[in-house]
C-alpha cells in the first residue's frame, strides 16, 4: 500500500516538475507546480512529517500559488510576448542558438543529477537503505504539530523569531518594490465640492439676503 502510494506520488512530483520546466505558458507552469507540491505533500506524509505536509498544502500550494496566479494574470504570463520575442530572436541571432542552449542545459542538468545520485546514494550511511528510525504513533510523537511546536518554541526559538522577522521585512520590501512611483499623477485638485458649497437656495448666504432683497419662502 505505502509502496504504491510512494510510486504514485513520486511520479506525480516528477511529472509536475517536468511540466513546470517544459510547458510554454507560465499559467500552466504554475498549475503544474501546484500538482507537484501536492504530490510532494503526500511524500512528506509517507515520511511521517504530518505537520510539514499540512503546511506544504495550505501555505505553499494554497497561498503562495494564489500569489503566483495573480501575478501571472497581471503581467500576462505568456512565455513570448510576440514583439519582444521577435526582438529577442534578432538579438540572439537565430533560433538554433536557443536549441543549443537547451541541449547544453539538459546535459548539465543530467550531469548534476548523476552527481547528486552519487553524493546522496553513494554515501556510506547505512541508514538510507533502511526504513528510518523506529516510529510509534501517538499524539506527541515525531512529526505531529505538538512535537514541531515544542521544538520551534524551545530549541529553535531564535530561528523561529528570525524567520518571522524576515517575513516582515520581505512583506515591507514587496510593498516598496511594487508601489507606484515615478510619473505618478497626483490627484488633480479640481473643482471639487467643498463643505461650504452644499446645495443651498439661490441667494441665501449673500449680502443681498442681508439687505432684504431675497424673499424668504
Amino acid at each position, binding site marked *: 500500500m*505505502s*509502496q504504491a502510494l510512494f510510486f504514485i506520488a513520486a511520479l506525480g512530483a*516528477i511529472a509536475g*516538475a517536468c511540466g*513546470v*520546466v517544459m510547458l510554454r505558458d*507560465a499559467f500552466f*507552469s504554475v498549475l503544474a*507546480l501546484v500538482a*507537484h*507540491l501536492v504530490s*510532494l505533500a503526500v*511524500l512528506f506524509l509517507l*515520511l511521517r*512529517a504530518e505537520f*510539514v505536509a499540512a*503546511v506544504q498544502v495550505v*501555505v505553499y500550494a494554497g497561498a503562495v500559488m494564489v*500569489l*503566483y496566479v495573480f*501575478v501571472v494574470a*497581471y*503581467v*500576462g*504570463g505568456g*512565455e513570448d510576448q510576440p514583439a*519582444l*520575442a521577435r*526582438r*529577442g530572436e534578432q*538579438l*540572439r541571432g537565430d533560433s538554433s542558438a536557443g536549441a543549443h542552449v*537547451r541541449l547544453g*542545459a539538459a546535459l548539465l*542538468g543530467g550531469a*548534476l*543529477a548523476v552527481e547528486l545520485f552519487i553524493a*546522496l546514494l553513494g554515501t556510506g*550511511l547505512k*541508514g*538510507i*537503505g*533502511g*526504513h528510518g*528510525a523506529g*516510529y510509534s504513533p501517538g499524539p506527541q510523537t*515525531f512529526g505531529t504539530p505538538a*512535537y*514541531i511546536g515544542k*521544538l520551534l518554541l524551545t530549541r*529553535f526559538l531564535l*530561528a523561529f523569531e528570525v*524567520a*518571522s522577522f*524576515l*517575513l516582515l521585512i*520581505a*512583506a515591507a520590501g514587496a*510593498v516598496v*518594490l511594487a508601489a507606484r512611483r515615478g510619473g505618478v499623477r497626483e490627484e488633480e485638485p479640481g473643482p471639487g465640492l467643498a463643505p461650504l458649497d452644499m446645495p443651498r437656495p439661490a441667494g441665501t448666504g449673500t449680502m443681498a439676503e442681508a439687505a432684504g432683497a431675497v424673499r424668504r419662502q
Partner: protein
Amino acid sequence: MSIAWYLAVSAVVFALGAIGVMTRRNPLVLLLCLELMLNGANLALIAFSRMWGNGDGQILALIVMTVAACEVCIGLGMIVAIYRRRLPIDVDELRELQG
C-alpha cells in the same frame, strides 16, 4: 520504501529545477524552477529527518519554506515593478547589470 528512494526523487526534482533555471527566460517561470530546487532540498531534509528519527530536519524544512515565501514575495514584487516600467519580461534582455 527505503530512504534511498526518497533521496533519488529529491535529486531528480532538484536537477529538473536546475535545468529549468538554465533554459527558461521568463522570470516568473524562473522563480517556479527555484521553488522546484528548494522543494527537492526539502524532500531530502525530511527524508534524512525520518532516517534519524529526529525533528531537526523538519524544522529546517519549515524555515526553508519561510525563506522561499520571502523570496517569492520579493521576486514577484520585482516582476511587477519591471512590468510597470514597460521593460521586457525576459531575463535575457534585462542585462543592464551585466557590465
